[in-house]
């Protein structure tokens, strides 16, 4: 029988259809109990894998009862303090049958230990556990901010996990190289390719250096590396990027790491499509954007993802509601089950356009990788600030293009007029809010556990963790023991903080400039000049990023824009307390404080900031920016916030214009 080119054949030569990718929804909020219900509902709706979102304290290694955790409990994910929370979270969910992805980095070892402890407690065969801990600490230093320890110790933890998993949970992916956030932070496709692959090599080099595996085991290890990427709106280019990824990974694993088995060289990846391009304006347009972005990573069989999660149409407004997540899941189901997408061999094989584009991406990405290699690899390029500065630069260029109307975003800088969306007219405003009282439940579970656990066992297991950390032993064993002894997330992380220290990476904003010269820029600069004439000094802004939310793009762009406008800018990076931010503003006698918050904790943090200003008897105006829903504006204004900027305010000079006006208003009193 003649084989037809448009038919897909399986290994035995029979016509077949490709199985669908794993459908996931990045989910988790409020507390373990609520999240458990959400997971079970999602699975019943046809979701085929779990993707757990953890709240910021869990990600940063703080228990819910830590002061810094309080405003963040259950906000952007589920809070996990002890094994008890995992018992609740996975109640009635057969973890041995699940493929569970945990978006966790700084505390990934701890969460995996809890998972293992839970499986052992349930009497399951631990070797059957399947899933992924994200554990890509490098992108945390660059883009997302939930790192804890310095690079060398973070890498050590990752290698410990590879060593442990290979022998005990062979189907687990101990780390997943996540270029997703790099694109969110402004990375071009070339940068996404280069930085992700350089990270992959850094991990493989560290594993090799440990020298704990035979070559066969090392090959298996390479086979366990998976990637988590971003798919943007330029979907043809994104599809080509995925093909480039596969080709380059093949070259790297075969050429540099001598992996003989084809199976272990395969580029395995999951996707979350881009949130950066989602707009707060006309949010209904986001539905189409998400569909198009999903096509980029599903259309081409040779570049098809293994797992997909789609954001919700309203993610630029707030956290999605369960209904919004359901809508996203339905899109995947339509794509996979209604269309004929999975019935064909690769559609783009032999396309000259695609081939040429892929070649181009590979060439440029290789150049960039070479540069990183010459610096001594990805870890060095983090420590010297190179990668971060490159991303801030790309982001500034992208924003300048949007501001100059060179990059069209429908509903944002073009075709702005429209009928308001009926989707947001629901009584809940189309957005989701975590019940502030729900944190009590988490705290109660935590205090109950602390009251009834065996204190001696806790102390012993933590002592072992400390010893093992000092003596270079694999930390997984002590961590699982800690999990079983009901140690808390904060206790685990604090013990290691004591030994490893905490990391502060470079902010990447220094030396950056904005490629923006327009009438608006001159207008703002004129106002700045007037201010300077009137007061004898440049306006001074302190840009602050309080709390545990590490998404610093907004703060970085404001810092760079303010400098461009002629301000003196003080920006000290992420994870500062409101006390630290106010102290900077007071000591510097700043004219304004600009605060960026994306985690939904704006009200609590505003209250803390104003309390601190009161302590210093300082009357410095404060403006807020971030994902702040309209209904919260009044509350923030009543606390004293002068202006609120949301993703709608993408025009950087409009923002600066409002800020200089606020600063100028104060002149009569301050001259």
């Amino acid at each position, binding site marked *: 029988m003649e084989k037809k080119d448009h038919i897909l054949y399986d290994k035995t030569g029979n016509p077949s259809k490709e199985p669908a990718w794993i459908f996931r929804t990045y989910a988790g909020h409020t507390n373990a109990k609520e999240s458990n219900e959400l997971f079970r509902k999602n699975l019943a709706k046809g979701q085929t894998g779990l993707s757990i979102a953890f709240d910021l304290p869990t990600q940063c290694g703080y228990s819910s009862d830590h002061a810094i955790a309080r405003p963040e409990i259950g906000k952007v994910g589920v809070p996990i303090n002890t094994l008890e929370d995992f018992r609740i979270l996975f109640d009635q969910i057969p973890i041995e049958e699940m493929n569970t992805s945990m978006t966790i980095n700084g505390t990934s070892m701890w969460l995996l230990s809890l998972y293992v402890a839970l499986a052992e407690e349930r009497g399951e065969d631990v070797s059957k556990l399947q899933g992924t801990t994200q554990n890509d600490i490098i992108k945390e230093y660059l883009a997302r901010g939930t790192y804890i320890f310095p690079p060398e110790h973070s890498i050590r933890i990752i290698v410990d996990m590879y060593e442990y998993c290979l022998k005990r949970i062979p189907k687990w992916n101990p780390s997943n190289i996540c270029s997703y956030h790099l694109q969110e932070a402004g990375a071009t496709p070339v940068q996404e390719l280069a930085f992700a692959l350089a990270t992959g090599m850094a991990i493989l080099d560290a594993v090799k250096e440990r020298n704990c595996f035979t070559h066969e085991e090392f090959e298996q290890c390479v086979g366990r590396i998976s990637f988590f990427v971003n798919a943007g709106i330029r979907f043809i280019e994104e599809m080509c990027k995925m093909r480039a990824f596969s080709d380059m990974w093949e070259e790297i694993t075969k050429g540099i790491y001598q992996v003989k088995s084809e199976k272990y060289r395969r580029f395995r990846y999951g996707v979350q499509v881009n949130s950066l391009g989602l707009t707060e304006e006309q949010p209904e347009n986001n539905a189409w954007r998400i569909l198009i972005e999903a096509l980029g990573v599903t259309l081409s069989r040779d570049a098809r993802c293994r797992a997909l999660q789609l954001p919700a149409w309203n993610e630029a407004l707030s956290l999605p509601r369960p209904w919004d997540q359901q809508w996203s899941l339905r899109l995947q189901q339509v794509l996979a089950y209604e269309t004929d997408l999975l019935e064909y061999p690769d559609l783009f094989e032999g396309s000259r356009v695609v081939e040429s584009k892929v070649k181009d991406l590979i060439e440029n990405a290789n150049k960039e990788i070479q540069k990183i290699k010459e610096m001594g690899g990805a870890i060095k390029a983090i420590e010297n600030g190179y990668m971060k500065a490159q991303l801030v630069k790309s982001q500034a260029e992208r924003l300048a293009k949007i501001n100059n109307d060179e990059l069209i975003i429908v509903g944002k800088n073009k075709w702005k007029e429209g009928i308001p969306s009926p989707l947001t007219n629901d009584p809940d405003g189309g957005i989701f809010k975590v019940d502030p009282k729900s944190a009590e439940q988490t705290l109660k579970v935590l205090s109950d556990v602390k009251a009834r656990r065996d204190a001696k066992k806790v102390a012993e297991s933590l002592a072992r963790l400390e010893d093992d950390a000092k003596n270079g032993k694999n930390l997984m064993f002590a961590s699982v023991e800690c999990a079983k002894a009901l140690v808390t997330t904060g206790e685990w992380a604090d013990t290691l903080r004591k030994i490893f220290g905490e990391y502060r990476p470079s902010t990447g904003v220094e030396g950056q400039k904005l490629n923006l010269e327009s009438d608006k820029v001159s207008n703002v600069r004129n106002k700045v000049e007037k201010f300077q004439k009137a007061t004898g000094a440049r306006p001074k802004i302190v840009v602050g990023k309080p709390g545990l939310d590490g998404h610093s793009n907004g703060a970085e762009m404001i810092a760079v824009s303010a*400098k461009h406008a002629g301000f003196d800018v003080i920006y000290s990076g992420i994870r500062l307390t409101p006390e630290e931010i106010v102290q*900077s503003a007071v000591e510097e006698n700043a004219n304004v404080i600009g605060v960026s918050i994306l985690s939904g904790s704006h009200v609590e943090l505003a209250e803390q900031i104003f309390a601190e200003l009161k302590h210093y008897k300082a009357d410095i105006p404060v403006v807020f920016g971030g994902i702040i829903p309209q209904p919260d504006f009044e509350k923030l204004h009543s606390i004293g916030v002068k202006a609120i900027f949301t993703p709608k305010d993408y025009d950087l000079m409009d923002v600066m214009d409002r800020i200089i006006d606020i600063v100028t208003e104060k002149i009569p009193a301050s001259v």
Partner: protein
Amino acid sequence: MTVRFAEKELKELIQEASQGEKYPLAKLISELEKPDSFEFRKVLFKELENSGFNGNRSVTIGFTGTPGAGKSSLLGEISTNFLQTVPDKKMAVVAIDPSSHISGGSLLGDRTRLSLPVREKRIFFRSQPSQLELGGLNPYTYHVIRLLRCFFDFIFVETVGIGQNEIEVSKLADISFLVMVPLGGDQIQFMKSGIMEVPDAFILNKCDEENLARASYHTLSTTLEFLRDIVPGGSIPPIFLTSVKTKKGIQELLDFILKSKPHTKRSTETKVQIEKWIKTEYGNFGLKALSQTHFDPNGSFEEVETSAKTEIEKRYK
């Protein structure tokens, strides 16, 4: 521009600042940083003197070196040790960062690398844009330091960039350090440009690794041997090996700083600073006029400034 604060208000601000209140001090500094602050300076320093604050016992420490030498992180460690080990003393930091030449704006990032305790009255940190003077001090730094000396026992001044401008800091510091990194290759370049003769002491920072540190130490000390002939007394400046990562050498460096006394050159400081200012404002013509001006070396900057200006104006006619 007129003086912004009424007499009573100024007195209050000074009193509060002397008690470690940050906002009043910050406001005073902002006034000093303005151009034409002459009248304000006259009133302020007079008032300070009347209130018994003269800053004579305070020590000024200059930290200079190439960007990336880790000066800020090092200062962060020193501050931590200072607060822990010297409970009865106060310190201030002035960190100078370059400004943008396009917009004039600046990004002051030095706080990034320092983690300072909050509400701690014994330490005060202030950033300063270099006001388009690439590296080096800005025109108001000197007056800010004069003010800080009144309230703090130790003033650290940190400057970025490298070149002749950089060593400006040594002209107002009682003791100045050049911060370098192991095998940075800077030594030879510095030697050529004469910079090696300026600092009172050297710091090899980022000595995380022993062998590299030792190798660099020997290179540097050999280079410094050449100085023996030109340095009075023939003694070569000390070299400190430090690492923020391993905490190496931090306490030793702090102990050395704590033992420092206000330098004898303090008496000529006014002269040096006024010359610098006159040179910027009136060039060689001004300097010539200044050389004809007789002033009391112990007089205030503002008195000297007034007599210099009078002399210059006389010559203009």
